[in-house]
């Protein structure tokens, strides 16, 4: 036993050292991804295309959601993955902060035509004229109206509009069912604070940009309008508690049960509805600004190469393959066939690549008579090139937190819209000053 303490002393540092592994790999043929999973054929079929074309590459897909803390720690430690897959909004911020590499050389070497990518999607990953990511999926925001509920209130679902702000309150009153402190139906859910950029834009104001101000009277008006809608439908506490009971991803979702009359929503939800409740009677229309013009906001993910990645050439080859139109079509066919095998319709794949979408919806799209898809997909396609996107900012997270916090304070009655947005503007200015951004 005399030697034991010495052994312990020697073993501990070895164990400590062994526990200090990173995310990247030193092997020359290894390619490590982060934030990307393989949930369906959209992922597996495209990965198969890459593996087939690059049999010598040891592709390691560390499945799991993107973890900002893990990613930034790895970059800071000089041991990042070779590829990162995340929301474009976040990647834009990382580009502005220097956490991901410019893809200009990669795009040039592989002859990628950036013109095939949707403008809003590309804008989100372009910082000071350089591209830092290649867009993947692309979603837009639109209106989904519950026809039976709206008709029962004596209104025309197709005529339900977000343009007439003065009249929306009365419409919400007619559609909502609130009594005795309990909400039994939401008439119109404005989806704030997360949809504030859309409402502000509908009123002619930007939230991020050189001239953008969060205390802009038009932003304040958008906050007042949307929070008033919530207040008159039972107030935030009851409204939100009721909304939390929605079985959003199930067959008994809020449209089937009649618990919601209308709301703006991300376009991916059309596929969810079509799959889980194909007989739901809904109207899918564009969101409109106060002048009645079609307005939508773009969202989605992108691939990027972190600063300090060990295999940038391989990573470049991977992200070019994954976002190429032919790869997307291969994945779409695989997805359609898999769904057909399960007796389900294929609602198409909305990508950031315009050429891919054209081929997918011309050659592969198979709605199988599903009324939600047949009605909704053309609307989504018509909106894709009309979308706006928040530009990248090095202080994006702080700005979003500032305006969402402000809207929340108004929703719960802590502050008036003017006061809340003035505080948000002060917070935004401090954040921008710290990072030297706009």
């Amino acid at each position, binding site marked *: 036993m005399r030697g034991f303490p010495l052994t312990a002393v020697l073993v501990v540092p070895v164990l400590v050292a062994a526990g200090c592994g990173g995310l990247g790999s030193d092997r020359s043929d290894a390619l490590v991804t982060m934030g990307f999973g393989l949930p369906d054929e959209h992922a597996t079929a495209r990965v198969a295309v890459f593996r087939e074309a690059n049999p010598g590459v040891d592709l390691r897909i560390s499945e799991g959601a993107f973890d*900002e803390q893990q990613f930034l720690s790895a970059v800071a430690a000089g041991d990042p993955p070779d590829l990162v897959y995340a929301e474009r909004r976040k990647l834009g911020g990382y580009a502005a902060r220097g956490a991901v590499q410019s893809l200009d050389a990669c795009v040039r070497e592989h002859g990628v035509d950036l013109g095939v990518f949707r403008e809003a999607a590309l804008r989100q990953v372009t910082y000071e004229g350089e591209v830092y990511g290649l867009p993947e999926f692309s979603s837009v925001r639109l209106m989904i109206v519950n026809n039976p509920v709206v008709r029962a209130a004596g209104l025309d679902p197709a005529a339900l509009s977000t343009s007439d702000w003065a009249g929306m309150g009365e419409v919400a009153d007619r559609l909502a069912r609130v009594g005795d402190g309990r909400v039994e139906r939401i008439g119109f859910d404005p989806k704030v604070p997360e949809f504030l950029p859309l409402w502000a834009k509908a009123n002619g104001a930007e939230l991020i940009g050189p001239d953008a101000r969060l205390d802009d009277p038009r932003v304040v008006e958008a906050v007042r309008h949307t929070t008033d809608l919530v207040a008159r439908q039972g107030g935030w*506490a009851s409204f939100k*508690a009721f909304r939390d009971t929605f079985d959003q991803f199930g067959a008994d979702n809020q449209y089937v049960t009649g618990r919601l009359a209308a709301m703006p929503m991300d376009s991916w939800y059309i596929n969810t509805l079509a799959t889980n409740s194909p007989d739901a009677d809904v109207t899918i229309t564009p969101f409109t600004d106060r002048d009645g013009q079609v307005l939508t906001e773009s969202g989605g993910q992108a691939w990027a190469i972190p600063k300090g990645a060990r295999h940038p050439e391989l990573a470049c080859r991977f992200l070019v393959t994954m976002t190429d139109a032919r790869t997307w079509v291969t994945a779409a066919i695989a997805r359609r066939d898999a769904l057909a095998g399960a007796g389900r319709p294929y609602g198409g794949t909305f990508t950031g690549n315009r050429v891919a979408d054209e081929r997918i919806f011309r050659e592969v799209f198979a709605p199988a008579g599903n009324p939600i898809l047949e009605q909704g997909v053309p609307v989504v396609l018509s909106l894709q090139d009309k979308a706006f996107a928040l530009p990248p900012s090095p202080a994006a997270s702080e700005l979003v937190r500032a305006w969402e916090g402000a809207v929340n304070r108004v929703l719960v009655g*802590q502050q008036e819209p003017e006061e809340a947005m003035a505080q948000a503007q002060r917070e935004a200015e401090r954040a921008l000053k710290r990072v030297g951004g706009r």
Partner: protein
Amino acid sequence: MTVSGRESRAGLLFLLPWVIGFLAFTAGPMLFSLWLSLTHYDMLKPPAFVGLENYREALADERVGTALWNTVFFTALHVPSQIVLALGLASLLRRAGRGSGFFRTVLYLPVMTPPVALAAMFLLLLNGQHGAVNRFLGWFGFQGPNWTTDPVWIKPGLVVMGLWTVGSTAVLYLAALTRVPVERYEAARLDGASPWRQFWHVTLPGISGTVYFTVVVNTIASLQVFTEAYAMFFGARAKQSAEGDAALFYVIHLFQEAFGSLRMGYASALAWGLFAVIAVITAVQVRLSRRYVHYEGERS
């Protein structure tokens, strides 16, 4: 009895693994964070020394005030309710007789629930419109509040949720209660003491060491509340569920500054601020303990 030099060296060697671990994983990071608190550091560029600027900013930060108030308010509700309920349950357990082992296990089982699962479960149970808690209250004619969405009720709701893990404190009290000498109760009864006076003058002094320990530990844990509140109000559902700043606890604010805004320097300053608050509160508790805590064999 004397300790030889050889034994002393062996003792130190046995301690060394822990000392290395402490230096590497506790003292080292603490000193590093103290240095970082004097810098601007976003993880992507090297730290830039700024002196006490982060501390000055923390003092002026509106959200720090809100977060600190929320945290102290939560602690003030959470710690007493934990202790009172745990003591009540421990007293009942002591009388459980043969079934005490079974009940001890049942009482402790909820402590094993992962915090995030607990948060998800309580979001459903505490839902103000259709939650089981309000349905239960409804049987008695009460209309329960919106526990998870009304800013006034969010912290009390979290306190209610915190009682789910009361078992860990209760088993400590049970152990302490069994150590109170029976003779003291007999003497008290002979003197005509009521059950309440027995509790106040015999039980409580007898378990005061354990009560003191649980007060200190629960206070520190409450001041660092994070996981359940973050999972309920700031995690994946964050954009849909942040209810004003009612659930913005100090460590959540610290986490947001560190990993949302990449302000490691400022977050480190906030961490040292919390360390100072905990140190002051613990020092007060230690001072009060000299007056109210009694240990076996101690001269009064």
